[in-house]
């Protein structure tokens, strides 16, 4: 258990040492701040004291950022040979995978943390639906979980980080857009099936304030499935 935390914290430090974390946080905050407060259909046009604009922006930017963060998780270690260093220590494949998962997850939490200011600002302006905002954040974290898991899986499969990130992005597009589009083109069983697979369906239902166990099962099962596949691929390495 401790091993997971040690690996995660080391990785998190690397994100900060290599400036990746700063660049990411800066871009993320810049983007979300710009679109939430200044540009287009910003928060003042909604007519309600909610953060839905911000959640939509974050929903899209995390989708793009996460594959970049996870691309080197396993592929990079394999390339540098440090995978051998780690896995010959008392570290199991699960420890490594979960450590990598947690490190990126922590980074996302750190990137999201300053945006709590938006919430306080909004609170000062008008009556805020507190639980809706809390659920919005939970939705973002659940969604990040899914994309981090997909990113780690592709990083296990592809030995090249660029390929890993691009394939994570293309798998992500299915969950992000394509299943949704398919769902609206089908009726009956397939319609329901694709609608269930689409991440946006579940994300929206959570941000709307409805927490259904079905949604939670969806997020957790996809994450677990991807992490489990990653572990299996890592265990069957023939190096």
């Amino acid at each position, binding site marked *: 258990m*401790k*091993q997971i935390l*040690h*690996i995660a914290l*080391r990785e998190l*430090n*690397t994100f900060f*040492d*290599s400036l990746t974390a700063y660049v990411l946080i800066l871009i993320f905050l810049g983007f979300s701040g710009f679109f939430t407060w200044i540009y287009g259909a910003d928060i003042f046009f909604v007519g309600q004291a909610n953060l839905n604009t911000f959640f939509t922006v974050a929903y899209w930017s995390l989708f793009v950022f996460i594959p970049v963060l996870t691309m080197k998780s396993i592929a990079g270690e394999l390339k*540098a*040979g*440090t*995978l*051998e*260093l*780690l*896995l*010959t*220590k*008392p*570290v*199991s494949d699960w420890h490594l995978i979960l450590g990598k998962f947690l490190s990126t997850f922590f980074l996302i939490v750190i990137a999201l943390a300053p945006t709590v200011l938006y919430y306080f600002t909004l609170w000062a302006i008008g009556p805020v639906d507190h639980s809706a905002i809390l659920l919005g954040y939970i939705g973002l974290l659940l969604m990040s979980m899914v994309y981090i898991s997909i990113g780690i899986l592709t990083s296990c499969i592809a030995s090249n980080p660029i390929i890993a990130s691009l394939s994570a992005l293309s798998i992500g597009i299915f969950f992000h857009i394509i299943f949704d589009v398919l769902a609206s083109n089908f009726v009956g069983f397939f319609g329901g099936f694709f609608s269930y697979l689409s991440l946006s369906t579940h994300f929206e239902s959570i941000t709307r304030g409805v927490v259904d166990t079905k949604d939670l099962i969806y997020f957790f099962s996809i994450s677990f499935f991807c992490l489990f596949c990653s572990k299996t691929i890592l265990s069957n*390495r*023939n*190096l």
Partner: protein
Amino acid sequence: MDIVVEHLTKRYGPQKAVDNVSFRVKAGEVLGFLGPNGAGKTTTMKAISCYIKPEEGDILVGGYSIHEHPEMIKKNIGYLPENNPLYQEMNIIDFLEFIAKIHSVPKYLIPERILDMVRTCGLEGEKHKLIGELSKGYQQRVGLAQALIHDPEILILDEPTTGLDPNQIVEIRELIKRIGKEKTVILSSHILAEVEATCDRILIINNGRIVVDGTAEELRKQAAGNEILKVGIQGGEVKDIFDLLFQIETIESVDFIDVDKNLFEIQSKPDSSSVKSIFDTCVKNDLYISELTPTETKLEDIFRELTLH
């Protein structure tokens, strides 16, 4: 802790990197693993340190099988991989601390262990540098330090002295010898002198199979065939000396090494020595010996002979 390797076989595609290899290493023994490139040294070491799973066979480390209890084995092994992979962007102290934590070294012991390793491996002057900024020799020392930090029972070192300068090589050898007194050490190398200087036992592996298993002495004895002498004889014509030498009964063959300096290479018949008869012949014919050196069979020759076929 003993290491028992039983019928280890590992394939990469159709090629067998290691083919039915079995050997034992007793606790407190220093075993040298020799072999040409691609012989299967690294594969065997990776299998012992639980990085790869062999298709067939088992390895028992202190009674634990690599298939069933890899966690228990990994705790007791300090492993230095072949190309010494390290986190280049970390500094030495942070890196060693991370490795110590991963090994569950008690928190209060960590600073002490790190200092100890920095001192033992001669990293004092560099300890605040990033690993990526170090020269190869210093990186190798960091690699050794990380392998030793949790005070393991077993040390597995894959080519520990590559990239080191001669002084460092001597230091590292001393270090290995010192560690080898209380711990089990397996080290691989293709430098024979190194293995001879540090190891109690030598294992030569070729094409995935063990070809020799024994001490350096035993190896020499096994390969030492007939007596070979390098002899310089002066005081006469080369041709006459040559003829005289040929008349000695115990001599099998005579070769010229240097005609101008009257240097010969003389090989005796099996189980006989020609030193005395050469001397007697020279006295009888009024010649004198300017040089007489027995040629010892070099380990290099044995190695070449065993691994070239």
